[in-house]
Every structure is written in C-alpha cells, then in structure tokens.
C-alpha cells in the first residue's frame, strides 16, 4: 500500500519535461501531468511493484471549448491487488491536440483512444490502428467538440431532423 503523497513522489520523479500538480477537485484524487511525460509516468505507475496500476478503467477526452483553447485527457487507473485508485489528467492545446498512446501498456486503451480520436479529434501517436470507431469513416467533424456543427447533408440525406 502507498499513500497518495508517495504516489505523487513517484510521478514527480518520472516527469522530465515539467512538474506535475495535484488536482484537488477530483474523485478519485487526481494529478495533472505535462503531456510530454505521460508515457514515462504511466510506465512508472504500471511497473512499480508497490503500486502496480494494472487496470486502466477509463480514458476520457474533455473539450474545454474554444474560449479556453484546451482539451484534456483523463485516465482512471485502478490497482487490483492494492485497491489504489488515481486519476491522471493531461491538458493539450486545442489547435494541435497530440499525445502519446498508452495502448501498448494497457491493451484496453486501444478502443478508448480510438473513441476519443473519433469524438474529439485528439491524435494518439504510435497507436496501432487509429481509425474512427463509432461514427462512419467519412463523417465530417468530431461530434463532442463544443463548437461542433453537424454537416447539413450526409450522402444526400438531410442530417437535421
């Protein structure tokens, strides 16, 4: 078992490009990590034997809207043997949302990341198969972005009903 502060120490030592911050407003407790360090942090969390976050429960994209100009990706991690839980958050710029994929660490991230790419247009580098998953491949735009406007016609069928 490790306390949150000890986990935060491990995350801090894994970060090379900046320093992580504790996010107070989340349940479970969250840490904001610089986007460049996400792979190093995740690797530390997964392979450190005293934490062993073996279960990636959920990966979420969040669009903060054009006013704010940022997007976020939130990872919810659980450790089955120790019953730890942690939320890791990454803030990306809205103009160029690119982040490393974690799908080679947890295979469950594969479809989650495809869904985030589909809905938000966030690009996951080194993802094995980054295609749209829920929407048709020739659909325009990313529906869960806050400024999304649906196309008027899809295949000569009116989209609005």
């Amino acid at each position, binding site marked *: 078992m490790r306390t949150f502060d000890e986990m935060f120490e491990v995350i801090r030592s894994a970060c090379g490009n900046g320093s992580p911050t504790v996010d107070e407003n*989340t349940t479970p407790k969250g840490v904001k990590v610089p986007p460049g360090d996400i792979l190093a942090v995740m690797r530390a969390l997964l392979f450190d034997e005293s934490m062993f976050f*073996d279960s990636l429960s959920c990966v979420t994209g969040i669009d903060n809207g054009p006013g704010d100009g940022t997007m976020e990706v939130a990872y919810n991690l659980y450790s089955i043997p120790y019953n730890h839980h942690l939320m890791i958050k990454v803030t990306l710029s809205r103009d160029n949302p690119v982040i490393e994929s974690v799908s080679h660490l947890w*295979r469950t991230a594969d*479809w989650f990341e495809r869904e985030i790419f589909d809905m938000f247009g966030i690009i996951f580098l080194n993802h094995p198969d980054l295609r749209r998953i829920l929407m048709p491949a020739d*659909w325009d735009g990313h529906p869960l972005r806050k400024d999304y406007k649906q196309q008027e016609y899809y295949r*000569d*069928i009116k989209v609005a009903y």
Partner: protein
Amino acid sequence: MAAEKVQYKYNPDNLTRSVPGKLNPAALRSEEMIVNLGPQHPSTHGVLRLEVLMEGEIVKEVVPHIGYLHRCFEKHAENLPYNQVIPFVDRLDYVASMNNEHAYAMGVERMLGIENQLPKRVEYIRVLVSELNRIASHFIAVGTYGMDIGAFTPFFWLMRDREHILRLLEWASGARLLYNYIWIGGLFYDIPVGFEDRCREFVNYIHPKLEELQTVLLDNKIFIQRTANVGVLPLELAINCGVTGPMLRGSGLRYDLRRVDGYSVYPEIDFDVPIGKGAMGQLGDCWDRTHVRVLEIHESLKIITQCLDKLTMEHKRTRDFDPQAFLPKKIRPKAQDLYVRAEIPKGELGFFFRSDGKTDIPFRCKCRSCSFVNLSVLPELAKGILLADLIAIIGSIDVVMGEVDR
C-alpha cells in the same frame, strides 16, 4: 403537408466509404478468404459486424466494426439536466436498466455529497430491484447463449421465468424494460403493497427451475463439448484488456465491485462472489463464464431474500414514508471531476462526470461501458479457432450492442 422526399442516390461505393474494411482483399493468398458476419445476423446479438479472415475453416483474424447503434448518449447528456439523463441511461444496457440507473444516480449523489444521507429503505429497494434485474439479464445471457450453440429449450424456459421478473418490475415502476425508477436522491415510487410477498413466491418458484437449467444446459454433454476449452481467456490478458464482470471472474479472479467498493448497502449483505474453476476444461473458457453467470443468479437470490427480510422487518413500509422526500430541489454539484463505477451484470459500468458548478447540466458525461471493453478482447480470443467456435465466443462475452455503441 407533403412528406419530404428522401433523396438518396444509390452508389455502390457507399458502404465501403462509410465503413471501409480493414483487411485488404487484393493481398489475400489463394487459400485465404474474407467472411463478413453481420451487421444483421442473429448470432451477433445485435448489430455487430465482424470481418473475418479465414484460411479454410480456421479463423486467422477478426476485425469488429461497431457503431451501427450509436445514439449519441454523451452528446445528449451534455444538453440535458442531470435528472433528465436517466431515461437515456436506461437505454444503454437495455436488459439491465435498473443497474444502470443505480450507477448513474449514485454518481450524481456522490457529486452532491448526499450519497450517505438517503433512507435505508430507499437503498434496500434499489438493491432489490437491481438484483432482480441482474437475474433477468443473466437469464438473457445464458438463454441466448444456449440458443447460439444449438440448445433451444433453455431459451424458452428462461424467457418464461424472466417474464415473472419483468412483471414484478412493471408493477413497481410502470414499465417493462426501461424503468426510470431510481431517481437522484430517491425513487419514483415506493414498492407496491404485496410486492414483498410476490418476490418471495418468485424466489421459491425459481430455485427448482435453476436446477433444471443446470441439468439441461450446463451439465449437458453437447453443451460441454461446445464450450469447454473454447475461447480460453488467461487472467493477465483479461486484466490488461480491461475485461470485467463475469468474464473476469470466469478467468479466476474474485473481483466484484459490490465487494471491492462496497457501495450502497452491499457491505451489510452476505453473499459470495463465484469464480470460474476450470471444472470442465481450462480455466477461463466459455463454460466457466457461463457457469459463473448461473452461480451469480443463486447469489442474487440470496441478496433478494435478505433485502426482503429488511424491507419487511427493520425498514418496513410506514404511512409517512416518501421515497421522493430527499430529492434535491436543484441538482447543481460544485465544480469537480468524478469517476464512479458500479457492478452491472456485464461488468464495470463507469461514469465520468465533469460539472462546472454553474449549471444543472453536466459539462461532460462519459459512459465507460463494460460491453464495449469486453468486446475489444474478441480479436485476441479469436485466433486460430474454428468459425463455429467464434460464434460460441461472441455469445459467452454477453454483449448488448446498445451499450457498446451508446
């Protein structure tokens, strides 16, 4: 008013442009072929399309294509107040709506900080209806699974018994499948007078029927031959792929969120968490998964009996009990991110909420659906097997496409 003319120009490329196949037919060797299963195929349990690369009768690769039932749940949720999302939540896993509602309501209550202030009677009724619905969902899973691989009779028997549950829930909530019964901070109604007695009658009725089910389906030699040693899911792969629910427990890990997280009144209730033991073949095969579901029905009956005891003794119906008494007047959580998870019949259902603290509408509401994640393990399981076994594996995953596509 004349109906607007639908102007759809037929174009042979339309299908390949909207859902292009991943496999390349031009690169096939002479002994290989691509078989397309679905989207409209009874054994795919809904609108699931599988692109299967085969060599003779051996499956070499499976590529699932999903999204045919996509209804923009998350987009809808971003445009509606918290309490009006509940009918949409019902439609995620439409054979276990009560469990979905329970998870969602719990998440919003946790954000509001009223989770532990609800009357015990409300919590026990929630657990009672959730467990009834869990049994109904497992009946569908086991029944249709038997039908997938050729056993028709158990399906009819289980549909007949499921009807009793649906009538009970209809009596309580007014709807057969999509209930809108569990509200944020309470319930729509108290359970009707006489409900407890009818539930007990049902529990007494169902025990011998489950023994029949065991004999006719699970111990059936043909069923064992079709499922034992088929679709073996090793535990490490299961955890790495995020598999939860009876699939994970079928692989031998005693991990049930009702026990691990201990939400609602589950800590006060005595029940076991059944796991697969590899009784008929290797650990984590299709037979183990089905057997875990059947054992869970027995455990749910235990939980129901204990809830009924509490609801007729300690927390019995009183004249002034109002299940809507604790409904918040205004659902406006303070700004926060919250991830909540709960055990529904298929696995871990999670909701990620972001509330901005200014409106009654969630800023972001993500549904982590267990069928979606469980289905993603299919390409791993379906390597080097026969096509007939692929059907057996899809059935044992127990997907509900309404939840996969959301």
